[in-house]
């Protein structure tokens, strides 16, 4: 009965939402577009920061340098793939190519051995909660 009450109340709210037409669809669409633009830009900025942190880690041979470097590739590739699906800007192709090379490099046995020596799969401490 509680579920039924919650369900009916939700239906009523949804009905009012449809009838009132609020918030305006144009506004929602505009906000969404702005959000998408901001999200893509933000992802590239975050990737750049992570890449810089990773580069510092590699420069000073800090073991934690690997994770930010790898996360930078995740963000870079993820954003490029998402942008390709939506807008197909030309700049995504060289970024994709570069990130692929970086992924292969970061996952190569030699690099992993240097940054994660003797690590068991379950021993990962990066970002553990």
């Amino acid at each position, binding site marked *: 009965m509680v579920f039924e009450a919650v369900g009916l109340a939700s239906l009523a709210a949804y009905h009012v939402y449809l009838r009132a037409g609020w918030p305006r669809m144009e506004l929602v669409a505009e906000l969404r577009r702005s959000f998408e633009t901001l999200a893509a830009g933000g992802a590239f900025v975050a990737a750049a920061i992570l890449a810089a942190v990773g580069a510092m880690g590699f420069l000073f041979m800090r073991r934690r340098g690997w994770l930010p470097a790898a996360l930078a*590739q*995740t963000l870079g590739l993820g954003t490029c793939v*998402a942008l390709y699906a939506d807008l197909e800007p030309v700049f995504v192709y060289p970024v*994709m190519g570069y990130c692929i090379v970086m992924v292969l490099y970061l*996952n190569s046995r030699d690099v992993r051995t240097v940054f994660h020596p003797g*690590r068991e799969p379950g021993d990962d401490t990066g970002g*553990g909660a």
Partner: protein
Amino acid sequence: MKDGRLDPESDVALLRRFEPVMRFTKGERFYPLDVEPYVRACGLWVHRAGGQEEAVVPRGKLTLENLGRQPEDGPGAVHYLRFTEPRDIRELYSRGSGSSLKRGRRVIEDLRSARKNFRVGRGRLARVGYVSRFADALYSVALLARGRVPGESAYAASVAYGRITSERDHYNYHGRVLRQDGWLVLQYWLFYPFNDWRSGFFGANDHEADWEKVMVFLSQSEGGEVRPEWTAYAAHEYTGDNLRRRWDDPELEKVGEHPVVHVAAGSHASFYSPGEYLTELELNFPAPIARTADRMRRFWRRTLRQYAGEAAAPDRDGAPGSFVIPFVDYARGDGLSVGPGGDREWDPPRLIGDPVPDWVSGYRGLWGLYTRDPFKGEDAPAGPMYDRGGGPDRAWYDPVGWAGLDKVPAPTEELGVVLGRRAEVAARRARLRAEIEEKGRELRGLGVEVAALQGRSDVGGAYEVRKSRLGALAVEVNRVREREAADATVLETLDVYAGRLRAGEREPARAHISRAHTPASDVELHTSRVAEVWAAVSVSLALICLVAIIVFEREHLMVALVASIAVFAFVEAGFKGRLTRLVSSVNVGLAVVAALILAYEFFWQMVILGVLTLGLYVLWDNLRELRR
């Protein structure tokens, strides 16, 4: 046992000398019981192929004597016992007075308080991944559709069990002594009236009746003295080497000459060490998917020389190409203990002697409710001698093979076996040497013939024929030489092994164990509460998210799905401390997608670039060689 034949008195003495000590878990309600009062409390039913159910012998009329003498009932018919009946369950909740009702309610109260004593362990779902959690949810949902033991049966069984034990507690086992392959096998068959693993302890199934077994394997000297060598405890459907422990294995706890068994709550699976065991029901992916995944993995690791550290330790979600549904067996050993030195002693055992009694050999039906569960988990088991389909049970007819001991000679016979084998190999080697001698002579003869005929134009095809035979014979002689050399090595090692046996040396006690079933470690048990909660809600939350995305974000379905999956995966990896592995996997996946996009957009450019790069590399390599 006299002259290899059963002698009831000495067999009972032998059984009692090595009878196990069973340590139960707090919250357990059903203990090993003699079959006689159980059968008396049951009715015998038949389920015919057409689906009709019929009572063959009503409750109260059934005895061990007439249980095994039932007429055949046509193909497809399943005989089964009913320990509880719907009216028992109705009685439990009906209002009224009467001693039986009061007793029933008291038993229910006892059951509830026993379950309150039971403390649920942490991390059943937190120990496995999303796929397994989802499979677990499906398994639970499937229980609603498939045949199962009714929800209140555990209560009703508890009442019926209380009736049986109301005058006096019974703790019994059914003993059998037999000789097989040089071993003297003591079988302790333990009968429990009910398995309440699912309803009582969050396990996989409930069923009426439960047959478990513990075995002790003895060697016997020529003077007739017996010595315990191995034990094997039954746990679910496991068989083979990993099931048994040598008598001197430190994991095997003993009270004097009595092995200690830690019994899992509800399921009654037996374990050597106290603790919580993750029992995994493994489901394999379809073979083509598993093969494709394996090929891709090999390409990644070998061809691209990518990181292979994870290959060394298999994923805890099971072998590649499979996933598992987790259940926990709580075998803490903190409850009642039955056996020598325990809280309760065993009653005199019921001997399953020779001839085998009718209730064992004559009754092929189930020992409890037949639920028609297609996975069989909720159907009661058959007796000691048979499986659920009425076929013979391996633990009965081949206990030595069941425990993986069929390849191990008894210590009193081992040296004889080694020497016998040595003589066989030596004889075979002598035959091979004679063959080498004979064929070597033939080979040399052919060799000179071929040398003589070479270059002559007047011999026709004789040269070619001999040359071909020479090649074939050379290969054959080489093969025989290899076999002879291998036999020489075997003989040498057998000599060394025999020497070690004469010196009284033995293999390490755990050399035969490839994958011991071990209790969860402290680290696994101390999963954080947040991770526990996340594991419990994650599958439902994922499904709700999926629905929300489909309803509200249809325009960006793929992006929203990928983003939500990423969020779930990252949270999970964070809890499990596997962020590095996840980031690697996600990167690899994204790199593959990006590579496919690039190949789609710039295929010919990439081909041209590839060929140019190859050409330049070859040029550079050759020029470098010239400079040296």
